[in-house]
């Protein structure tokens, strides 16, 4: 049992910035937990406060049931991997990996056997005598992980461990990391600003903004039902379309948007109410207009530009002056200028309050 309980946590920097601003959070034992948010939202600060590298100004942090809020970092039983890995350049890989043990004055023989074993787990055999400077980025990342694991913390904290790797390596490292965490079953908190990474890796995701929690949930929940426009815009490999709209008639279940309309479970939202309509490009269907009128609510527009996404394309459609993104299978990519019609299934169309940006409550309830 090495869960993390955070209660009313706030971290204020000496310059007055409230980088973490009253946060409640529980990470379960063995969970792979992602902290996600844009740059400057306080992810790193939260992680560092858990580690004890920053002082909590308010609230408490408990690890494995014990209050560690005022404990030295070294006594909290946490291990951390820094964004720049912080490998000691003057130590060999094996010295780096076993440094946490050396600090605790573990005998050299034990240390070298730990180094062997950990290196084995992370496929670092044969690199043990090298210096960090002689390793590739991916290898360095694994050494940093190995060192964190060798320190036998109850909790593993990772601050953007993948962001220094190049695109292809990042994908591989991602899979590797996920498997490793599964195998070790160690509670892991993972900071990233890349939503794809968070979705791919985490059991649960906390989306932060300005030091506060905006949404907490499984990747699926967060992806499918962002609770506000901020999260909606932030999650997804292509940004969600967030369009000005109005409820056509509360019972008909449709919203007017961009010169057309889309089906939506409007719930108790009154007719004529102005809302923000959120729909992911992946959930919109594009049909070439000449194929005849489609039944039900739809939006007409004209293709502007298309971006290849591999097996699919992201097509930007100009609908009465509003640009709407739609994902289409690669073979269906229309030429720029083609007139098209967009439709969407009702349950994929989300309505947000125009002012607050919150998912409209009734609607949220209807789905949950």
């Amino acid at each position, binding site marked *: 049992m090495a869960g993390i309980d955070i209660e009313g946590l706030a971290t204020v920097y*000496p310059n007055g910035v409230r980088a973490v601003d009253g946060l409640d959070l529980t990470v379960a034992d063995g969970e792979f937990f992602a902290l996600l948010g844009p740059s400057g939202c306080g992810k790193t600060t939260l992680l560092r406060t858990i580690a*004890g*590298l920053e*002082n*909590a100004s308010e609230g408490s942090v408990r690890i494995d049931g014990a*209050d560690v*809020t*005022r*404990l*030295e*970092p070294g006594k909290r039983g946490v291990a951390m991997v820094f964004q720049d890995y912080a490998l000691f350049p003057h130590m060999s890989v094996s010295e780096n990996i076993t440094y946490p043990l050396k600090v605790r004055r573990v005998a050299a023989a034990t240390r070298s056997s730990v180094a062997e074993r950990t290196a084995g787990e992370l496929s670092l055999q044969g690199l043990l005598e090298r210096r960090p400077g002689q390793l590739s980025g991916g290898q360095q990342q694994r050494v940093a992980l190995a060192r964190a694991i060798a320190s036998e913390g109850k909790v593993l904290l990772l601050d953007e461990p993948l962001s220094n790797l190049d695109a292809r390596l990042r994908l591989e490292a991602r899979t590797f990391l996920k498997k490793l965490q599964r195998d070790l079953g160690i509670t892991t908190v993972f900071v990233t600003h890349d939503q794809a990474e968070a979705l791919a890796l985490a059991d649960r995701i906390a989306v932060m903004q300005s030091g506060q929690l905006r949404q907490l949930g499984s990747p699926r929940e967060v992806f499918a039902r962002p609770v506000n426009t901020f999260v909606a815009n932030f999650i997804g490999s292509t940004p969600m379309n967030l369009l000005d709209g109005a409820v056509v008639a509360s019972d008909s279940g449709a919203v007017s948007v961009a010169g057309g309309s889309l089906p939506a479970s409007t719930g108790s939202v009154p007719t004529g109410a102005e809302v923000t309509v959120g729909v992911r490009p992946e959930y919109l269907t594009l049909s070439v207009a000449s194929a005849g009128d489609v039944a039900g609510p739809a939006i007409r527009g004209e293709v502007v530009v298309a971006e290849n996404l591999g097996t699919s394309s992201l097509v930007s459609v100009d609908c009465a002056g509003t640009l709407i993104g739609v994902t289409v299978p690669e073979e269906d990519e229309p030429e720029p200028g083609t007139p098209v019609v967009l439709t969407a299934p009702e349950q994929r169309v989300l309505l947000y309050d125009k002012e607050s940006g919150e998912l409209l409550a009734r609607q949220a309830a209807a789905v949950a």
Partner: protein
Amino acid sequence: MPGRPARVRGPAQDVAGLGVGRALGFVAPALLLIGAFLVFPAVWTIYIGITNYRLTGVEAVSPSIVGLANYTKALNDALFHNALWLTCLFVLGSAIVGQNILGFALAWTMRRARPAVRRTVEGLVLLAWILPSTVVAYLWIAFFDRDTGTLNSILGQQGTAWLIEYPMVCLILFNTWRGTAFSMMLYSSALQAVPPSQLESARMVGASGWQTLRDVVFPHIRGHVLTNTLLISLWTANDFSPFLLTKGGPNHESETVPVYIYNVALQGGELGYSSAISFLLLLANLLVALLYLRLLRRRS
């Protein structure tokens, strides 16, 4: 929790968990030594500066406090004015212009030079810097010597007594030779901090070498230029090695303030007066440093 109760203040706020208390402990040995062997004598020197203390004679037994008499004397002392002027020349010529420009030129050109060339040139420049000053003095006396000197042999002319006829020029050359290494090293590392992409950007738009230096390089290393200038100016202003070459002569023509202080203290034995001049030199240094800090702060 066994053992000590949980601390109330939480872990230390700095990266190493040092805490202000231990940090002070770390600074203490250095401060103690500096206090004892630098600040304390300095304060004492300032005190001596308001007395007519001499090491021998009647005033050695009972020095009396003369107040600011030493300072008013300095203000009317033509030799002190001369020394001040020469020091300014010396600093301007050898530090601000000589070492700075040569050091920068070396750092700039050696950046792209072949490693062998680079190592040789830098090695020589550094050698000039690390050789003991007494040895260096002999080297330069030999270089400038009137009869058998290397310079005259090179120029194929005999009998020019460089140290007599152009003492300040010689000293400026000498000090440039001696101190360029520091500027070179400092600028080398400063230039490494200029992103190559910025230089290349300038090149891409067709900027000339001078335009690149002015628009790209200097704004980047402005802080370095100022720090370097400050350090070498202070060091040069307080440099005693001119004494080893010319002893301040001929006829005070190369008597910079430190040499003058030495001459007043040792030849004249007037410790009170020499201490007062030392303090004036300190004030001048302070002025330069403040000026520099202002310039540095103006950096946007």
